[in-house]
């Protein structure tokens, strides 16, 4: 990306004398001058900003670039975020999604929904009856499986979003979190989707794809026991772990979003409110005064907050296991 580019997660809506820009990433809206925004939308990363409209003077262009940068409407590189311990890099920013592509995404989404469980059961059954007897390539399978599982997970979220008419997909990328953990991300917007089941499917799509790949890898490990079984077993283990661990009810993880949608209305509503019920006596008492439903809500909130200990428990398990290996 040689020149600045308009962030495709910033949507515009014309108002009377200005344009309302909505930053779907930060969930913020602000009003900006029409001529500045319409000029900014032409920034594609390949064209020199000063040559888009030669009639506009350079000082004005520099000021516009500064303003658009301040409002996070443009980006100057593929780096999405650079903070302490976190680094996110975009690897694919879509240009335009056609109707034919949407049909493909719909088919992919349906295939995931219908096939992940049968494939997983088939894979486990076949592998248990034809166990692998070559461990060669296991570690290569772990590394390849980790990269493949992360990317496929995010691609599936994006495809499930695009399978819905009002879903929006902005970009996919990779990065590092907490200094050491490799991550992948997909920027999507499901706010305009009304159907709860569609929103749940968008959040579950990543997990379904991991479990489908786990089942497929186990099947292949059983089919080629002498040569590639170790490699496919490594892929299956990574995908299985990633798929299952993404189901837990920890903040920011797909499982928490799903349960929040099932219990409440919006993805983060139950997560945010449950914290208040557990840590604030006033809010808890106010809810309990509503009667037996209030008691159920507070009980659910306590269970949910207790389960936030899952990720710390996982880290402790991993660290202690590593210490155990070296002892």
């Amino acid at each position: 990306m040689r020149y600045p580019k308009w962030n495709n997660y910033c949507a515009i809506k014309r108002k009377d004398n200005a344009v309302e820009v909505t930053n779907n990433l930060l969930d913020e809206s602000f009003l900006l001058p029409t001529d500045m925004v319409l000029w900014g939308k032409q920034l594609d990363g390949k064209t020199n900003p000063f040559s888009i409209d030669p009639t506009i003077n350079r000082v004005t262009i520099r000021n516009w670039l500064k303003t658009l940068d301040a409002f996070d409407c443009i980006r100057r590189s593929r780096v999405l975020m650079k903070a302490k311990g976190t680094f996110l890099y975009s690897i694919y920013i879509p240009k335009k999604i056609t109707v034919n592509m949407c049909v493909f995404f719909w088919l992919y989404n349906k295939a995931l929904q219908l096939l992940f469980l049968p494939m997983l059961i088939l894979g486990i059954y076949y592998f248990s009856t034809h166990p692998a007897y070559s461990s060669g390539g296991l570690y290569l399978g772990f590394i390849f499986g980790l990269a493949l599982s992360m990317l496929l997970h995010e691609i599936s979220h994006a495809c499930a979003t695009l399978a819905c008419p009002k879903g929006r997909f902005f970009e996919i990328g990779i990065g590092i979190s907490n200094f050491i953990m490799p991550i992948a991300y997909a920027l999507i917007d499901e706010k305009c989707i009304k159907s709860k089941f569609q929103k749940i499917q968008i959040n579950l799509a990543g997990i379904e794809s991991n479990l489908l790949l786990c089942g497929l890898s186990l099947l292949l490990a059983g089919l080629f026991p002498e040569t590639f079984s170790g490699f496919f077993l490594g892929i299956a283990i990574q995908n299985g772990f990633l798929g299952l661990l993404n189901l837990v009810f920890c903040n920011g993880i797909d499982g928490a979003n799903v349960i929040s949608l099932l219990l409440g209305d919006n993805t983060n509503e139950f997560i945010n409110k449950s914290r208040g019920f557990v840590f604030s006596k006033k809010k808890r008492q106010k809810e309990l005064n509503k009667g037996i439903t209030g008691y159920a809500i507070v009980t659910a909130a306590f269970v949910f907050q207790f389960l936030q200990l899952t990720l710390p428990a996982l880290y402790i398990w991993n660290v202690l296991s590593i210490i155990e290996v070296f002892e």
Partner: protein
Amino acid sequence: MKKKNKAYSSLFIATITIPTISSIFAVRYLSLISLIIIMAGVLLMLRLPIFKHRENLWMFVIATFATIPVNIILVKHISESFFFDYGGIAIYISKGFVIYAVLFAVEQIALGIITRFFYRKQYKLF
């Protein structure tokens, strides 16, 4: 009013204790089919007026307690079958907690989707 509150309290205790006790027997015979029957019973119980329009919330709460005995046995079984037995008590507890959380999540999401499928019209929680 007092009689109504007593009736509701008894009903609440019954809906939690009956599935929990039943799942202890399910544990003894390791029969997941009996657990499915218990949860189907809970689904029918959700037709009671006390649970009306809040079926997902009540399924979450009831299933949390009802599945404790089965999940503990499953965690022990999975821990011994799929993970090497090593390390001290800290590893044992953290490993068990993570496996329990994953099992719990799978059950709750499956039951939640089934409940939402049968009971589509529900009030907003907040």
